[in-house]
């Protein structure tokens, strides 16, 4: 007599499956780690490019149009096309995904950093100048800290979008959890698809909360007058961002 087929949730191909979690723990952790790295590197790269761009746009006003124009055009390109367009340059590599995601984050970051710098009250900069601050010291100790709330709003949205978009990287084999979703789709493996999808959303929420915590640490002065600032912030950067829509 042959042994009866295993009668567990993996054999049933259930959506929710505890056995899947225990048997594929290593695969899940590896994918999660790759997802994490792709997201962090891309947003960090975006930030490294966006801050100088925003500062340049602020110093030389005529560059605002071209900088915002080019980053917005990049933002319009669908992700599947973006990753494919970078293919001849980077080949099938993690760099390709990181660069593609960084290009998307540029739009959100530049716009919000610029909005934050423009929102610095003239009184603050005048007071700093009156106290004898040079341009560099004024930028580092007055303007940039005051721009943090708006910049962080952009950073949070850019990071959350990057987590979601990383999944598309599966097309070149570097999509973190997206790889599991892609493989799960081809094998009709429901538990894998659902687990990876849920982990994606959880990762996005964790990043968002972490950045919210960082923002609070960076802006201790806002806690005193949080209510007043919140009502102002709610109409500012959020609207800018709502007008960009999400990336797909």
């Amino acid at each position, binding site marked *: 007599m042959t042994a009866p087929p295993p009668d567990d949730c993996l054999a049933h191909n259930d959506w929710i499956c505890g056995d899947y979690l225990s048997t594929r723990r290593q695969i899940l952790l590896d994918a999660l780690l790759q997802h994490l790295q792709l997201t962090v590197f891309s947003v960090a790269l975006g930030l490294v490019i966006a801050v100088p761009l925003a500062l340049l746009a602020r110093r030389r006003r005529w560059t605002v149009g071209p900088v915002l124009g080019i980053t917005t055009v990049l933002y319009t390109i669908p992700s599947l*096309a*973006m990753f494919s367009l970078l293919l001849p340059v980077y080949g099938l590599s993690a760099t390709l995904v990181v660069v593609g995601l960084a290009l998307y984050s540029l739009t959100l970051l530049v716009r919000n950093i610029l909005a934050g710098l423009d929102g610095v009250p003239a009184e603050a900069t005048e007071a700093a100048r009156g106290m004898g601050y040079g341009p560099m010291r004024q930028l580092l100790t007055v303007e940039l800290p005051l721009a943090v709330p708006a910049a962080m709003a952009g950073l949070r949205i850019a990071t959350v979008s990057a987590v979601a978009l990383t999944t598309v990287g599966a097309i070149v084999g570097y999509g973190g959890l*997206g790889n599991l979703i892609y493989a799960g789709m081809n094998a009709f493996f429901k538990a894998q698809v659902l687990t990876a999808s849920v982990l994606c959303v959880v990762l996005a929420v964790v990043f968002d909360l972490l950045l919210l915590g960082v923002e609070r640490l960076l802006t201790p002065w806002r806690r005193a007058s949080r209510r007043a600032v919140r009502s102002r912030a709610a109409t500012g950067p959020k609207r800018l961002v709502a007008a960009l829509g999400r990336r797909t």
Partner: protein
Amino acid sequence: MNTVSAVWSWLTTAANWSGENGVWHRLEQHLVLTFSCLVISALIALPVALTLGHLGRGGALAVNLANIGRAVPTFAVLVLLLLTPIGRHGQWPTIIALVLFAIPPLLTNAYVGMREVDQNVVRAARGMGMTGTQLVWRVEVPLAAPLVLTGIRIAAVQLVATATLAALVGGGGLGRIITAGFNLASTPQVVAGAVLVAVFALLMEAAFELAQRWAPGWARGRAR
């Protein structure tokens, strides 16, 4: 250099443009999918947004919907829908996912537009004895039109991008040229497809830009 010429020769080969897998057929699929989903999501989102905006409720709903939407990967939703029983019905997983993701920008922008109407104007209209319906159609909607149109524009551009992703789960559209290129390990085809998709998305954006520029004054208003 080599890739550029290979891409160019792919794009200029007539055989790649005709037939079931040709560019024209994929473009047609892409257009049909984009526009039908835009109409469906507008029919769902706009009445809700205009009503909530008129009543001044649901602001948190609109903002939260937009934020949650950002955290959910479109690709994951497409695959999840594909594996449910809906997946057996042709295009439906794609259409549902597309509509789901086009609703937030439509809803948010129309709601914000309605709320941003100058309250003095609203009070004046009420003072003149306008009924609620008259107020909505003759005062609030015309004044909110620029933002409502901006929402439609964002949704349309986003739909073009999402329709590309549908190719990953076996849907039609221009994205199929890219995924087919990957399956054939043909970099020229992948890049040619990507160029076509990018150009299409940019043209869509430009078309709305021009339409907004040439539109009558009340509908103009810069993208905010």
